[in-house]
């Protein structure tokens, strides 16, 4: 807590008599000593460091150490059970790059991100626009919309798995109304499985980001919409010229979060495919690959799994930098 005190006149700081003809001599003024009261008086120099120590330790333990450990392990032949191994240089990276299963997983993860990120940036914004107006009962609607975001992703995925199976609700409904004769195998085709997983991700994620957009929309000046209306702008033009610029920062944040989440996608694909990654493992994502390689006690390689994790890290960084560049260019 800062303390403000009245200026204190020091010794010899009297006023210079007028009419002497000599310019007043400039004297060095001494800064008044800071007076600290209460707890601040006894605060040692290391106290601020103490305040940040806990988060620093947490970050070091749970982010920095795993990060560095994974990086170093990626150059070893460490086994999953012992965690120990010898230095093998870049061998794990060579093995990784020559593994078609790895490239298949990379393709799936990147496609996942490329489809989910734009939709997850746009759709929650549109939903937020729908529910932002204060009409009677809107609080209830907002709460209902938010339910998928608070439900367990495991439960959501299992529920969708039951809905989408051959004898599930969707196929039964489509057959009942005569649109199809045979069930659509949503969960056994490579791309249909991934599309279903994307739908689950969007279904569970849209309400969460909708809330974030609602907060951002609250800061958009309403008079801008009125001005745009006066200029003859319709809903689409208002959206593009007022809403989007107003929530641009939030859109960037959402894009970053969703990009990271999409590249790490695991739960949806894992549960919809019963842990198999689809027929032939063709829908397997990068995190599923890392888990399979890094944690198999008999045939796994912690070194190779760590190399996969480093590759995921580099991909994430690469996509983030690319998106930042695009964002910067568009702003310029």
């Amino acid at each position, binding site marked *: 807590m800062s303390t403000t005190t009245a200026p204190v006149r020091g010794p010899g700081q009297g006023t210079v008599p007028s009419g002497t003809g000599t310019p007043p001599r400039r004297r060095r003024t001494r800064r008044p000593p800071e007076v600290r009261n209460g707890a601040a008086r006894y605060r040692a120099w290391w106290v601020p460091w103490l305040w940040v120590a806990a988060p620093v330790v947490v970050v070091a333990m749970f982010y920095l150490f795993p990060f560095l450990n994974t990086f170093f392990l990626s150059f070893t032949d460490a086994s999953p059970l012992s965690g120990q191994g010898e230095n093998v240089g870049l061998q794990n990276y060579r093995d990784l790059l020559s593994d078609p299963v790895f490239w298949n997983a990379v393709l799936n993860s990147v496609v996942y991100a490329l489809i989910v990120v734009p939709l997850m940036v746009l759709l929650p914004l549109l939903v937020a626009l729908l529910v932002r107006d204060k009409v009677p009962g809107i609080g209830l609607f907002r709460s209902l919309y938010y339910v998928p975001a608070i439900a367990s992703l495991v439960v959501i995925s299992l529920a969708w798995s039951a809905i989408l199976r051959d004898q599930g609700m969707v196929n039964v409904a489509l057959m009942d109304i005569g649109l199809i004769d045979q069930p659509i195998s949503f969960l056994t085709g490579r791309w249909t499985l991934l599309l279903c997983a994307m739908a689950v991700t969007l279904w569970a994620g849209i309400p969460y980001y909708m809330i974030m957009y609602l907060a951002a929309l609250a800061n958009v000046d309403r008079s801008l919409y009125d001005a745009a209306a006066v200029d003859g702008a319709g809903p689409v033009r208002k959206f593009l010229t007022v809403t989007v610029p107003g929530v641009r920062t939030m859109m960037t944040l959402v894009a*970053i979060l969703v990009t990271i989440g999409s590249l790490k996608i695991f739960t949806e694909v894992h549960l919809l495919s019963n842990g198999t990654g689809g027929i032939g493992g063709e829908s397997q994502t990068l995190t599923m690959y890392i888990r399979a390689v890094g944690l198999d006690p008999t045939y796994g390689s912690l070194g190779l799994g760590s190399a996969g994790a480093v590759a995921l890290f580099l991909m994430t960084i690469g996509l983030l930098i690319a998106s930042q560049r695009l964002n910067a260019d568009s702003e310029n």
Partner: protein
Amino acid sequence: MIQKSSLSRRAVLGSLAAAGTLGAASCTGASTGGDAGGDGGIPEPSVGCEIPEMNLDDSELDLSDLSGEITFMTQGLKGTFDEFFTDLIADFESDHPGTSITWTDQGGTADFDTLMVTQAGNCSMADVINVPSSTVLALSQENLLLDYDVKSPGLGEPFVPAVWDSIAFGDQGHHTALPWYFGPLLVTYNKDVFERAGLDPETPPATMDEYFEMAHQIAAADNGDYALYGNTSWYLSDQWHGMGVQIMNEDRSEFTFAADENALRWMTEMASLYAEGAIPKDSVLGDLDQSQAYTEGTLAFGTPNASFLRTVRSANQSVYDATGVGRGMREEGINPIFSGQYIGVSVASPNAPLALAWAQHLTDPAQGLAWAQYGMDTETAVVFPATTEALDDPSLAEASGKDPMEQARSISAEEAKVSEAYLPAFYLTGQVQEALLNSVNKAIVGDVEPQEALDSAQESMNRLLQRSAS
């Protein structure tokens, strides 16, 4: 300039977030290190903690004066068998004053294996571990289990010789795991579905040829019933074994099934049955356990694990009542597989004498018989011990009626006496099993030709096998 500064800040934030991604996606592990031999020739595992010298030297453990505490971890037993184990532990502690055993349990095969990997790396494994067949080979090869042949010679005498002799997975062919309990794989089938397809409901298939023939007939009936469940994880190795497929070579250095005509026949039949509609399409990626699908009443063949009949009974009594049971399908001269659970003692255990004494107590004939009897009395499991004395007990084969669980127990008891550990099954785990199933599934749904699938699977599996051996 402001923009640049802002961008830079965002980039840093993004980088930190991505670093979190790496941390979250990272695997567990510690610093690198190497092996060092123990005094008794027992290799020291490469882990980041001190291994007690008495667990590695060539002396026998003294089990005459037990004291202290140990932990005991099982797989998927809590919630069903609490009373049995609580009493067992209490009796042991009362027989050995000053000892204490803490029981923990972890459900699910994949979760159990993952937990085992994490615990092994940081030396936090329980002192006594219920090791499934998917992990026993890996733990033994990494020298993470106590060498029974050095620390307690003669420990294997009570066990069925065919089983005990074949599970020497440790260094120098030593034993590191005690066979605990198992359930022979059987045939369970829906008699109503058999009748609807014009099959004799009282005659289950005895060989794989009969099985495929019946499956084709059920598909041909085209009445909405299915013959088989598509997820082959639980029964593939058992059916290949029953057909006499040579999955691996003699020294188990290579997978060889792709050149086996029986493997090709199996693969071709499965693809054909899928095309005929004998297999529910999405069951190829269905649950491991087919009990749930079987309870719907339209699937002819149910779970091969008799213990899961209780799931059928609790879900659909009428399907349970219509269930018939037969012995496992296999050609003449082929024995059923001992596919079960093992008991290992962690080589890092600070109280190895007590841990070994508890492992021995848990697997001795009396406890094995009591464990099987408990399963019968409570109708919770059809499990059998692996000791000769217990398996010879007539009470195990007693069947009081036509109830499917009773029949399963009676048939299993006969099968148990002639079961043997089927070594290739221990190698069909993790990524190797995944590689096999991925190729098999692609062939079943018709994406690739059967022979191409077998070749592709074998190539991937041999690559993984060689990597683990190097």
